[in-house]
């Protein structure tokens, strides 16, 4: 396994949505993703953590080319897919899978499980009807929907939420992709099945040596799950580091705030007041000048209000975007 090979490289990616188009006024944009850089190696897992509205879902979908990037580059195995037209993306569709947040809406209600899993194969012309049957049975076994014969002819409404999410995962991996984007895959599920689904996702990722981008707002589930943690705030990646490094040595004030918000199981800490950054995430149409976190930051300095910080490499595998730190 050449695990050091870079699978996905994102350079200065910007996704702006135009919201007003009149003849007189300038067009307005929602800057959902504004200058994101990162690399993803084969077989690695990234957890993309951020509040609602921080642009993490937009980033995930843009990587899947569901949204058109405004600027920047997305390289998949050194091939530029940033502006490829829809028809030339077919090979990329086979290499990526998508696990959605809402399993209840993610399955076509009028297709049986078998047909749901067959659709990607039919569209991408993979296999014959017989070999497809085998692939589908294998995929269902892999997501532990066994015995397969109990599920294969069912319709989505006959399944529970956890079972549906397993079908969604099976659909994402049926074409044996190299990259799976999982957008809050457990947030709509019962607490009881969350860990099972996450374990399943982790197992599949390990077994197939796939790369995984796991989008979540829940830092608690990230710990045992990913190689990297990226913290996203208002369209920027404010800190990215290896999981252990980030959890033990958080640098960015926002990261610190997020970590301190994780419920603490130690009862002796129950009277400890947690510091929560005041205010709300900024309006992405007109984000604050300088560092976007400065209105809520307790360490804000003059320079934070004027100039946007650059991303600096603090330690090996640890980058942060903050004026408090200096390179090296």
């Amino acid at each position, binding site marked *: 396994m050449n695990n050091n090979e870079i699978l996905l490289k994102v350079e200065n990616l910007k996704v702006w949505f135009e919201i007003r188009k009149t003849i007189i006024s300038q067009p307005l944009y929602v800057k959902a993703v504004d200058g994101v850089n990162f690399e993803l190696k084969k077989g690695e897992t990234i957890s993309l953590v951020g509040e609602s509205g921080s642009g993490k879902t937009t980033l995930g979908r843009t990587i899947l080319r569901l949204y058109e990037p405004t600027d920047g580059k997305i390289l998949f195995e050194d091939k530029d897919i940033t502006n490829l037209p829809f028809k030339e993306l077919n090979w990329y*569709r086979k290499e990526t899978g998508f696990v959605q947040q809402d399993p209840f809406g993610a399955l076509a209600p009028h297709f049986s499980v078998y047909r749901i899993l067959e659709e990607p194969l039919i569209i991408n012309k993979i296999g014959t009807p017989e070999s497809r049957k085998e692939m589908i049975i294998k995929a269902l076994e892999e997501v532990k929907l066994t015995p397969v014969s109990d599920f294969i002819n069912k319709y989505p409404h006959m399944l529970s939420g956890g079972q549906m999410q397993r079908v969604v995962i099976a659909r994402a991996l049926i074409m044996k992709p190299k990259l799976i984007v999982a957008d809050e895959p457990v947030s709509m599920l019962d607490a009881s099945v969350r860990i099972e689904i996450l374990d399943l996702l982790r197992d599949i990722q390990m077994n197939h040596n796939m790369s995984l981008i796991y989008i979540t707002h829940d830092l608690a589930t990230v710990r045992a799950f990913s190689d990297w943690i990226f913290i996203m705030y208002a369209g920027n990646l404010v800190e990215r580091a290896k999981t252990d490094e980030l959890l033990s040595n958080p640098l960015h004030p926002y990261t610190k705030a997020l970590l301190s918000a994780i419920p603490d199981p130690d009862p002796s800490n129950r009277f400890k007041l947690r510091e929560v950054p005041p205010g709300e995430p900024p309006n992405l149409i007109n984000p604050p000048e300088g560092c976007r976190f400065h209105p809520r930051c307790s360490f804000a300095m003059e320079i934070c209000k004027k100039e946007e910080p650059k991303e600096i490499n603090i330690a090996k595998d640890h980058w942060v975007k903050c004026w408090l730190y200096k390179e090296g």
Partner: protein
Amino acid sequence: MDNMEFTSSYSLKGIIKEVIKSKAGLFSLFIFFILIVLSIYAYLSMPYNEVKTLWNDSQAWLKYPRNAMPSWWAFFIGKNLPKNINLQEPKIETISDNPKILKYVYNFSYFYDDFPSEFNIFLKSSYKNNPPILRVYWINTKGDKIFLIEKQQRSEADTFYLGNETSIEENLTKYIQEKLGYYPPFPISAMKGLFIEPNENQSIAKGSYSFIVEVQFSDKSDTIEIEPIIYGKVYGIAGTDHLRRPLELGILWGMPVDLAFGLGASLSITIIQLILATVSGWYGGVVDNLIQRLTEIYMLLPFLPLMIMISLFYKLTIWKLLVVLIILSLFGSGIKTQRAMVLQVKTLPYIEAARTYGASNMRIVFLYIIPKILPPVIPGLIISIPSYIFLEAILSLFGVLDPTEPTLGRIIEDAFQNGALYKGFYYWVIEPSIIIILMAISFALLGFVIDKIVNPRLKEI
């Protein structure tokens, strides 16, 4: 479960399988089967164009009773209603040779519970100088010989309508007055007078009758063919209309026409509207704008006046009118409601998932969106089939459709025009209506079954 079934119920094969599995589906298919077999039988036994000319030929139906009930009607009212009696095989006697006088005697028995409706004599003769003179006698059950009428034929082929001759009524009234001893207190029509028991009850005299025609020829070589018909009050399985046409002909040949008209109109209009609505909702932008503005313009156009105008200008047949109807309904209000559904379905995650695995726009429109919005569209489709059949009748009323075309709508229309319900000819309205209702029911049942397939939530688990 070794031999698992992998057929998706979404294929055509799957749908047919599901339809056959359910009772409602089976029932509707059964009705369709009957209707289709009847149509095929009708079209094989007589080509449509022949029926059309026959239907409009006023001479073809002279020997049928007018406004006769269907035969099974008698079963419901418990009366033995008269059928047509064709008097045949006369005993021919020669009365004199110069002038040549022949006597035709027809013996028959009459056991029905009602008076016949008419009595006509069809005459065909060949003569040298003058047409023959006919003297008509009647011998009733009592054995009394009554002189009815003396009349000269007017041309080689002539018909005597005995029911319309006032002299016959006078002669019969005279006979009954003799029998009763006073002037009858009730009016005596020809039919009544011929078959009445001469007493106060006005009951029917059942028994054997004789009908005698004495023909006096002007020349020895002259010949005559006499065909007397006593018309009944019931005919066939469907009865006859005001022009003596047997209704089963019109119903049997009109049914496929109506079926094709209704089905063609509603299927093509619904499918085209559905596709337009989905394309409009899915692509958005300029396409959406164009389709929506066109729809708004179309919705303002007055449909019926436009149809009438077009067909008056161009004298269209029913099939060309169907095309006009489809074109005029392309951008209907259905597009608006269906587009609203598309806009809702468009944002569902499974559509987004389909895009991530590379489904094309066409595939998403036809396999992902249309099946999802189909369930609420199906009832509209079903309801619109009979409504287009009724539209056909309404257009007939306005004189827009070809009036020579035998269709169910035309038959109902004829019935209303001739006051069928007022006069008690219920069969005339009920028969074509039942066919239309049967069509509607079978379409509705089929619709429910397909609804269950398309919307698996309705399926019992």
